[in-house]
C-alpha cells in the first residue's frame, strides 16, 4: 500500500510541554539567584565594539586550549583535564581510532565491523576531529558523507509524548542510512554519486560569487529498488570540538530563546527539537546531529557506532547495525556481540568514546582585538547573525564533570532549529524538525577549518566552499540577514568574514 506523506500525523495527545524537559543526563548543582543574575550580565549582547569583551578569547572557558599551528588543533584534550582523566581521554581516543575488524576474530573486543558500514572506525569520517567534505564529483568516493534515508511514518511510528512529532520510519530495505562499504560476501548498498551545477550571485561592489548546487544519485543499488516515497538527507561529518560543553548548556537556557510563533516579530522563530531518549525512555531536548536529533552526546555516539560502523552498544543493541530484515545475509552473518562484553561495544567502551568526544577542546580565538575583527563583530550583530548564532552561554554547575562545569562558553549557536529555506532543505523530517529546518551549527573553531581539514567546506553537505558561500546559501528565516550581506559595503563584508574566521 502506498503511504503518502499526507499520512504523517501531527496528533496532539498527552504531549510534553516544552518546559518539562530536563537535563537528567547531567548531575546538576542548581543555580543560585545570584549566579543567574551574574550570567545574565556576562551573556548580555555587547554594545561596545571598540574592544573585545572580557573572556571572549577563550570560547571554551577554562577548557580552552592554545592554538596548535598544525592539523591537530582539534585533537587536544580540555585544558583543565587532570593527568589521570587525560589517560581516560587517550583511551577514548584509542576506541575512536580503533579499526574494527570482521567477526569472528580473536580480538573479541575489536570485532563486529558491519557487515555493512560507512567506515572502519570513527576516525574514518571524523578525520582530525574536523569537518568532512563532499565528494569532488561523480568519481570521488563519499567517505565522510553519509546519506540518511526515511519514508513517511505511520501511526505506529508516532511518538505521542512529543508535540508536533513528525513520524518517519527507516526505508524498508536499506534502513536509515546508505552504507557504501561491506564485508566480503555482502553486496554494498549503493554508491553515492554527486554532481554539481554552478550558479552566480551578484554582490555589491560589482563582485560575483559562484555557488555550486549538488544533486545526489544512488547508483549500483545492491538490494533492489528504493521505496517510492524515500527521502534522502546527505550529510558530511561535522567538526567535533566543544561537544561536552554543548551537552552541558542548561536546556532551560536554550528553550528560553525559542520563539516558535515569532512572538517578537523579528522574523526568526527558533524551535527546539525534542527527541526520544533511548537511555531514559522519555522525551528530551534534542542537541546533537545536524537536525538536533539526538538528546545527548552519549546517544549520538552510540547511534553513529550503529549506523556508520555496524557496532552495537547498550543503547542500540543490534550487532548487524542498520541492516533491515530484508537484508537476511547481513542479519545472519557472524557479529561481534554475545561475549563477556555482551555488546560489540559495552558500557565501558561507550563511556570512553563519549568522554573523549566531550573533551575535544575548543582552541583559543585569534586576533580578538584586531580593529577589522572588531568591526566584523559589530556587523555580525547589526546584521542579525547573532539572532540564531547566539554568542555565549554558561554551562550547568556539574557534580562529576569539573571540566564542563560552570564555564562561560562562546559557541555561536542557539542549539535551535530554523527554517533555512527550500534551497538548503533535505525534505526529510527528523523528530520535530521539518524538511526545511536545521539546527544552528556552532561557529567556534570555524577559522581553523583549513588548517585542520585541508579545505573550507561548510553546511550540512559541504556544498559551500568558503564562509561567504555558506552565508549566501542561507534562506528562510535567514533570508534577510543574507540579503544584507549581499548588499552591504564590500569592506563590511570582508570584516564580517574576518571576524568569523577569528572564531
Amino acid at each position, binding site marked *: 500500500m502506498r503511504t503518502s506523506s499526507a499520512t504523517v500525523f501531527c496528533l496532539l495527545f498527552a504531549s510534553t510541554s516544552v518546559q518539562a524537559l530536563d537535563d537528567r543526563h547531567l548531575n546538576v548543582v542548581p543555580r543560585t539567584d545570584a549566579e543567574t543574575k551574574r550570567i545574565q550580565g556576562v551573556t548580555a549582547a555587547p554594545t561596545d565594539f571598540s574592544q573585545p569583551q572580557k573572556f571572549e*578569547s*577563550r570560547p571554551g*572557558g*577554562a577548557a*580552552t*586550549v*592554545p*592554538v*596548535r*599551528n598544525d592539523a591537530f588543533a582539534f585533537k587536544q584534550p580540555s585544558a583543565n583535564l587532570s*593527568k*589521570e582523566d587525560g*589517560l581516560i581521554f*587517550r*583511551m577514548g*581516543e*584509542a*576506541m575512536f581510532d580503533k*579499526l574494527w*575488524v*570482521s*567477526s*569472528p*576474530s*580473536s*580480538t*573479541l*573486543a*575489536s570485532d563486529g*565491523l558491519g557487515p555493512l558500514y560507512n567506515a*572502519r*572506525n570513527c576516525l*574514518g569520517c571524523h578525520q582530525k576531529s574536523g569537518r568532512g567534505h563532499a565528494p569532488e564529483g561523480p568519481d570521488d*568516493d563519499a*567517505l565522510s558523507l553519509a546519506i540518511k534515508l526515511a519514508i513517511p511514518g505511520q501511526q505506529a511510528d508516532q511518538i505521542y509524548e512529543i508535540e508536533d512529532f513528525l513520524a518517519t520510519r527507516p526505508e524498508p530495505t536499506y534502513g536509515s542510512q546508505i552504507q*557504501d*562499504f*561491506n564485508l*566480503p*560476501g*555482502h553486496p*554494498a548498498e549503493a*554508491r553515492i554519486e554527486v554532481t554539481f551545477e554552478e550558479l552566480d550571485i551578484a554582490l555589491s561592489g560589482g563582485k560575483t560569487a559562484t555557488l555550486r548546487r549538488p544533486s545526489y544519485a544512488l547508483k549500483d543499488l*545492491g538490494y533492489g529498488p528504493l521505496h517510492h516515497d524515500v527521502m534522502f538527507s546527505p550529510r558530511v561529518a561535522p567538526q567535533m570540538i566543544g561537544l561536552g560543553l554543548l551537552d552541558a548548556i542548561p536546556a532551560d537556557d536554550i528553550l528560553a530563546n525559542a520563539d516558535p510563533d515569532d512572538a517578537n516579530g523579528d522574523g526568526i522563530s527558533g524551535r527546539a527539537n525534542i527527541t526520544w531518549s533511548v537511555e531514559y525512555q522519555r522525551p528530551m531536548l534534542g542537541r546533537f546531529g545536524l537536525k538536533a536529533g539526538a538528546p545527548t552526546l552519549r546517544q549520538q555516539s552510540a547511534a553513529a557506532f550503529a549506523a556508520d560502523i555496524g557496532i552495537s552498544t547498550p543503547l542500540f543493541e543490534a550487532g548487524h547495525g542498520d541492516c533491515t530484515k530484508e537484508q537476511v*545475509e547481513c542479519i*545472519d*552473518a*557472524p*557479529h561481534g*556481540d*554475545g*561475549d*563477556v*562484553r555482551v555488546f560489540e561495544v*559495552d558500557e*565501558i567502551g561507550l563511556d570512553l568514546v563519549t568522554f573523549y568526544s566531550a573533551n575535544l577542546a575548543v582552541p583559543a580565538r*585569534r586576533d580578538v582585538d584586531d580593529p577589522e575583527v572588531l568591526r566584523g563583530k559589530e556587523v555580525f550583530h547589526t546584521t542579525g547573525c547573532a539572532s540564531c548564532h547566539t554568542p555565549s552561554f*554558561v554551562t550547568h554547575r556539574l557534580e562529576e564533570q569539573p571540566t564542563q562545569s560552570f*564555564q*562561560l562558553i562562546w559557541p555561536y549557536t542557539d542549539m535551535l532549529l530554523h527554517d533555512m529555506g527550500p534551497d538548503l532543505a533535505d525534505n526529510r523530517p527528523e523528530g520535530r524538525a521539518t524538511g526545511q529546518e536545521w539546527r544552528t551549527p556552532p561557529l567556534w573553531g570555524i577559522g581553523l577549518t583549513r588548517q585542520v581539514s585541508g579545505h573550507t567546506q561548510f553546511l550540512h553537505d559541504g556544498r559551500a566552499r568558503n564562509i561567504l558561500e555558506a552565508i549566501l546559501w542561507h534562506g528562510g528565516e535567514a533570508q534577510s540577514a543574507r540579503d544584507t550581506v549581499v548588499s552591504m559595503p564590500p569592506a563590511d563584508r570582508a570584516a564580517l568574514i574576518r571576524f568569523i574566521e577569528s572564531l
Partner: protein
Amino acid sequence: MTRHILITSAAVLALTAPAFAANKADVVANYANIAAAKYEDSLTTAKTLQAAVNALIENPSAEALHNAQGAWLASRVPYQQTEVYRFGNAAVDDWEGKVNAWPLDEGLIDYVDAAYGGPSDENPLAALNVVANASFDISGETIDAAEITPALLESLHEADGVEANVATGYHAIEFLLWGQDMNGHNHGAGDRPWTDFAAGDACTSDNCDRRAAYLKAATDLLVSDLEFMAAQWSVDGEARATVSGDTDAGLVAILTGMGSLSYGEQAGERMRLGLLLNDPEEEHDCFSDNTHNSHYYDGLGIQNVYLGEYVRVDGSLVSGPSVSDLVAEVNADLDAELQAKLSTTMMSLGRIKTAAESGFSYDQMLERGNAAGEALVMGGVDGLVDQTKSIEAAVKALGLDQLAFEGSDSLDNPDAVFQ
C-alpha cells in the same frame, strides 16, 4: 666538523665528548643514528624471518614452522624498540600502519573458528577469505586474488577509501604462523599445525598453497617496507633530514615520541584499556602470546632514546650525546628524576615479562578479577604515566613547550576565565 662518524651497519663508533657541553645538533644526530641502527636491525631480522618462511614453504615440517616462529619472535625485539620513533616523526607514523597495524582482520586472511564470537553453527560467510577464494567482492569491487602477491595485499583495503591495512604486517605473519589463540584466559598461544602448509593430501584446512603464498607475500612486503624505513634514516634519508633540519623541532620530536608512546599509547591504549575491556586478545602480540615482550621492548625503546644508547642485535653499542645530557645541563635533579622513573618503569615491565615467561601469561593477567595480574599491569601503567610527567617537565626545562603553538597569549591566567 662533526664530532661523529656516522654509523654503518657493520661498525659502530660511540663517541662521547665529556669535555664539551652537549650540543643540540649532535643529540639529534645521535637520535637519527640510533633510528638507523634500529631499523637496520629490524630489516636484518626480518630477512632472517624471510629465509625461515621460504624454508617452511619449500619443505614444510614441524621444525620449519618452529624455526619461522622463532625468527618472528627475534624480529620483534629490535622493531618494538623503534616504536618510540613513531610519534613525532610523521614519516614513521604515516608508514607504521602497514607493518604493525592492530587489530588484525584475520577472518579476511584465513579460516577462523566460527565459534569464536559468531553463531555456533558453521557460517558460510566466515569462509570468505583470501586464502580460500581466488576472487571475491569488496564494496562493489571484484578483487582478483588468483595470485597472492605483495601488491594484492597492499590493494586489499583501498576499497575502503582509507588506508586500513589490517591484513598485512607483523601480525598478519604472526597469525599465519601461529593461528588463533583458542586458550582464552588460560596459558597458551595459537597452535597452528605445520600441516596447514603441507603439500598434497597432508594439507589440513585446505588451500595450503594459497596460505603459503599469503605468508610469503606478507613477509616479502614486510621486508620491503622495512627497507624503505631504514633508508629514511640513512645518511641522506628524508626522516633524518627532517629532524636535523630544525634541531629544536627535532628535540620536540624526540620528547613527543617518548611522551606519546609512554602515556596515551602504551599506558592507555595497550595496557589499561585491555584491562578495562578484559579481552584476553586485546594485547599486542596475541597469536604468539608475546605481548609481555612487546610492552617490554616498547619501554626499553623510550629509555634508550632518552639515554642515547642502543644495543644492536649483534651486541654492539650505538651511543652518543643524548637528551639526558641536555636536561642535566639545565636541571640535574630533573634528569636524575627522569632516569630513575624510566628505570622504575623498566622494572615493572620486567616483572610482567618475568611472570609471563615463567607461565603466567599476559592474557591471564587481563582476566576480570585476577588481582595479581591487574597489579602487574597497573605497575607498568603507573610507571609510564609517572615518567610522562617528568618528560613534560623536560620539555619545559629545555624551553620547547611553546613550539607547537601559535601566538604568545598564555592561557595560564586564572582571571581570564569566568568562574
